[in-house]
């Protein structure tokens, strides 16, 4: 057998697992599709979310490191940090819902330099003896019980590697996971295409804030997003999400030239483009089978964020070490996975599905609903499931008013399960 443990993917989850395993003396090989760690062109919001208990931990940023105060995990980081103080949801006529902490005095999150972070972790792994096969694709493989075989393609040549335990940390599309049969019990959801444009010269947007634009007039079926970049004031990231029916390039063109935001883009210049596509599945409730464990985004409902990737990698290393010692590390990992991530809670899924804003409401109705939230500060959370819940809780403070003034909107809310009959 070539290796004790093979890890597929040199992202946050894979590198953290590699580091922790190497520190425990396990011989590890990481297989990565990219040829080196010098460029990161995959779109990502690149932020640390510091809400208490997000992913069942509390993240603190200390001098030169991240500290997960519950699990005790510490990760060195010496790159840029850009605080984000506000998150605004804009309606077509610019009624605004505001998320903030301590009225904008405490950051909601920090943007960080993911490329620098991953490169540093990679260097640390290499220093601790982790082997890397870069520019290598995984074609398939098989868990034979006493070992796992992994077929790889490198420089047009196929070969087969073997290991005792395989960690799949390939990221969101879960292609390799599928080749190992790990997607068997998962439902696949939609495919989303995302393009991110780094731009200068956009006017009228607050620095250090996220801005989500909702409504048909912005030309997207979801939200068009303008958020902070690492490049300093006045340079923003524009994130556009599309679908097979409506690709992000077209949405971007119309958002910047024909939507109510068009005047803000009159003198804007593109600096750099990145992208990703996401074929999403419902979460992998049982991420461990035989000698194979799927960690991070490939097992998630969409994503665990970078910090969740670190937690998964750390836990997975412990689980693999326990398994190698004949203990039941994978069951313990599965329990932690199911308990810690919100998409594994059935309640959260029901909540998130019932809280749609786009599609359901017309632009005029969004203006009305958003206007009801003006003057309120919604606190903290960046959770994909709790955020819409907080918005609807705020709207529902005005239930009686909506029923009286706009009965047709109230009827829609009832139909969507967002208000009582």
């Amino acid at each position, binding site marked *: 057998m070539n290796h004790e443990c093979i890890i597929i993917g040199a992202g946050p989850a894979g590198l953290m697992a590699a580091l922790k395993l190497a520190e425990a003396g396990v011989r590890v090989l990481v297989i990565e599709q990219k040829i080196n760690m010098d460029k990161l062109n*995959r779109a990502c919001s690149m932020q640390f979310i510091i809400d208490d208990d997000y992913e069942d931990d509390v993240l603190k940023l200390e001098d030169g490191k991240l500290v997960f105060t519950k699990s005790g995990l510490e990760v060195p980081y010496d790159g840029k940090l850009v605080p984000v103080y506000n998150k605004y949801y804009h309606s077509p006529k610019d009624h605004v819902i505001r998320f903030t902490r301590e009225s904008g005095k405490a950051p909601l999150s920090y943007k960080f330099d993911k490329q620098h972070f991953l490169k540093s972790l990679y260097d640390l792994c290499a220093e601790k003896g982790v082997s890397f096969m870069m520019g290598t694709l995984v074609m398939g493989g098989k868990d034979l019980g006493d070992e796992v075989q992994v077929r790889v393609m490198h420089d047009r040549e*196929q070969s087969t590697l073997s290991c005792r335990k395989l960690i799949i940390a390939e990221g969101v599309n879960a292609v390799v996971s599928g080749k190992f049969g790990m997607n068997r019990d998962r439902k696949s959801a939609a495919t989303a295409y995302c393009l991110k444009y780094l731009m200068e010269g956009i006017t009228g947007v607050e620095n250090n804030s996220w801005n989500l634009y909702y409504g048909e007039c912005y030309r997207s079926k979801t939200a068009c997003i303008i958020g902070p970049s690492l490049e300093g004031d006045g340079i923003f990231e524009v994130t556009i999400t599309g679908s097979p029916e409506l690709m992000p390039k077209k949405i971007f063109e119309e958002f910047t030239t024909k939507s109510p935001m068009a005047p803000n883009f009159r003198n804007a210049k593109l600096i750099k483009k990145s992208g990703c596509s996401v074929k999403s599945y419902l979460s992998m409730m049982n991420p461990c089978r035989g000698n194979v464990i799927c960690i991070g985004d490939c097992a998630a409902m969409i994503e665990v964020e970078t910090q969740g990737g670190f937690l998964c990698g750390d836990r997975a290393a412990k689980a693999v070490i326990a398994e190698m010692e004949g203990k039941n590390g994978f069951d313990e990992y599965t329990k932690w996975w199911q308990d810690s991530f919100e998409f594994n809670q059935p309640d959260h899924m029901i909540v998130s599905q019932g809280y749609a804003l786009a599609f359901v409401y017309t632009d005029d109705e969004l203006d009305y609903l958003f206007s009801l939230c003006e003057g309120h500060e919604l606190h903290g959370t960046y959770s994909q499931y709790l955020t819409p819940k907080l918005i609807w809780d705020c709207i529902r403070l005005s239930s009686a008013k909506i029923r009286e003034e706009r009965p047709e909107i109230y009827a829609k809310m009832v139909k969507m399960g967002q208000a009582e009959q």
Partner: protein
Amino acid sequence: MARRISDECVGCGTCAAFCPKGAISQAVTGYYVVDPEGCIDCGSCEKACPAEAIAPEEGQA
């Protein structure tokens, strides 16, 4: 008979992950290229691309 990646490529690598033949790889530029000898023209890469950068080679239907 092969797909081709244009300079609309943003370098995300999704196409390489979806290629069933392992025929797409990252070039030194950071962007991706199709190996025409490995490509079976199945279109998986084209479907995976967020940037509409992949199409059949010119001259093909």
